[in-house]
C-alpha cells in the first residue's frame, strides 16, 4: 500500500552556531526551567549534584518567562551560544 506520510512537511533549515569550545567543560551545562517553582528547585539540586559528584560546572540556570508559553527563539539562541547541553525540567 502506498500512502501519503501524515507526518510529512517542510522542516526548518535554521541552525544556531555553538559558541562554547568542544574541550571546555565550563559553562557547558544549563538547567532550563519552565518557570514553575518545582522545576527551579529540581534543577538547582541537579546542578549541585553534577558539580559535587562529577566536577561539572559552573552550571547555569535559566527559565522561560512564563510556564504557559514555549521558549522564544531569542532565549534558545542565547542558550545555544552559552551552553552545550540543557537539562529541561517540568517539575510542576
Amino acid at each position, binding site marked *: *500500500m*502506498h*500512502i*501519503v*506520510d*501524515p*507526518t*510529512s*512537511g*517542510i*522542516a*526548518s533549515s535554521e541552525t544556531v552556531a555553538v559558541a562554547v569550545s568542544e574541550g571546555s567543560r565550563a559553562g557547558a551545562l544549563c538547567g532550563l526551567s519552565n518557570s514553575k*517553582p518545582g522545576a527551579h528547585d529540581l534543577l538547582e539540586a541537579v546542578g549541585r549534584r553534577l558539580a559535587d559528584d562529577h566536577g561539572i560546572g559552573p552550571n547555569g540556570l535559566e527559565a522561560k518567562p*512564563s*510556564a*504557559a*508559553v*514555549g521558549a522564544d527563539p531569542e532565549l534558545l539562541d542565547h542558550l545555544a551560544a552559552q551552553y552545550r547541553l540543557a537539562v529541561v525540567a*517540568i517539575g*510542576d
Partner: protein
Amino acid sequence: MSDVLDLPDVDDAWAWMAACEERGWGDGLPTIPPTEERVAAMLAGAPAVELGPLPPRGVTPTLRSIAANAVMAGCRPADLPVVLAAVGAVQDEAYNLHGSLATTHPCAPMVMVSGPVRAALGLNGGGNCLGQGARANAVIGRALSLVLLHVGGARPGVLDRSTQGSPAKYTFCFAESDETPWDPLAVQRGFAAGDSVVSVMAAEPPHNVNDHGSTTGAEILLTVAGTMAQPGSNNVYVRGPHLLLLGPEHAATLARDGWTPASIRAHLWEHARIPVAHVSEGNRRQFVEWGVEPDGDAYTVSDDPENLHIAVAGGAGKHSAWIPSFGGTALVSRVVP
C-alpha cells in the same frame, strides 16, 4: 523528497491499525489509510492557504499532509476547507499553540463553526452537539488533532505532556445554534452573517451548568456564576478567555428578561467570584507570582469581562456549559476559505 511511503505488508484494516500503532500514528481509534488516490480526491478543489511551522516539532505542513490527516480522520473533501481554517487559526500567535500542546493542562483545540457551512456539512449545533453522532463534528475536530499530532509532533507522553489529558483531545468541534436570540458569536466578533467562520480556543472540556429550577434570567445567571467560580481552573491565575455556551432554553429565558451578551458578561464579571477562603495559602502565593490578587474578599475568574465569550448551542433541555481555557491562549476566529 517524496512524501509517499510504501507499506508492503499492509493489506487490510487490522494490518493498517498495527502499522499506525507501530509508528506512533493516530489517536488509538481506527483511521482510514491515506492512499495517494484518497489524498488526491481530498485535495480536488481545495483552496490555497499559507501555513507556517507547527510547534512543537517545527515542521510546516503541506496541503498533502493536511489532506492525509483529513483522510485518516474520516473527512470528506467538503470538510477540508474547515480543517484548513482551523489549522490556520491555531497558528495565530495569540492562540499559543506551542504552549497549549506541550502543557500539563488538559486543554484541547476547540473548534466552533458559525455560518452557512454548518448546514452544508451537517455540523451539529443542536442536541448533543458536544457529544458523538454527527460525522462533520467528529471528523473535523479529529483531523485538526491528528495534524497537530503527526505534523506538529504533539505525541502524548513525548511532546504532549498533559498530566491527564481529556476526552476532548480526540475531537472537540461543534456548531453555533441558529436558535440564538442574539447575534451569533461570529457576528459579535465582527464577521458578516453570511460568513462561514471557525473560532478556536485551547480549551478544557465543557463544564455542565444544570439549572432546571430557575424561571428567570437572573436566577439562571446565579447558577452560571456559581459554576464559573471554582478555584481549579487555569483562568483564575493564568487568566485569558473562557466561553459560556448557553443552551437555547436558558438563552431564551435570558433574552425574554432583557439580557444581552454584554449585560450577561458584565453581570457575571461582578458575580462569578471565588471566595479567598476557597483558595489554599499555597495557591494564593502562586497566584501572586502570576500577578493575581483578590478583589476584596474574592478572586475574579479572569482579568477582564471581555474575556468571557457568549454563544448558544444545544437542543431541548435546561443545560448550558462553561468552557474554561488554557489561560495562555485566545479565542481566534477565521473565515473558512
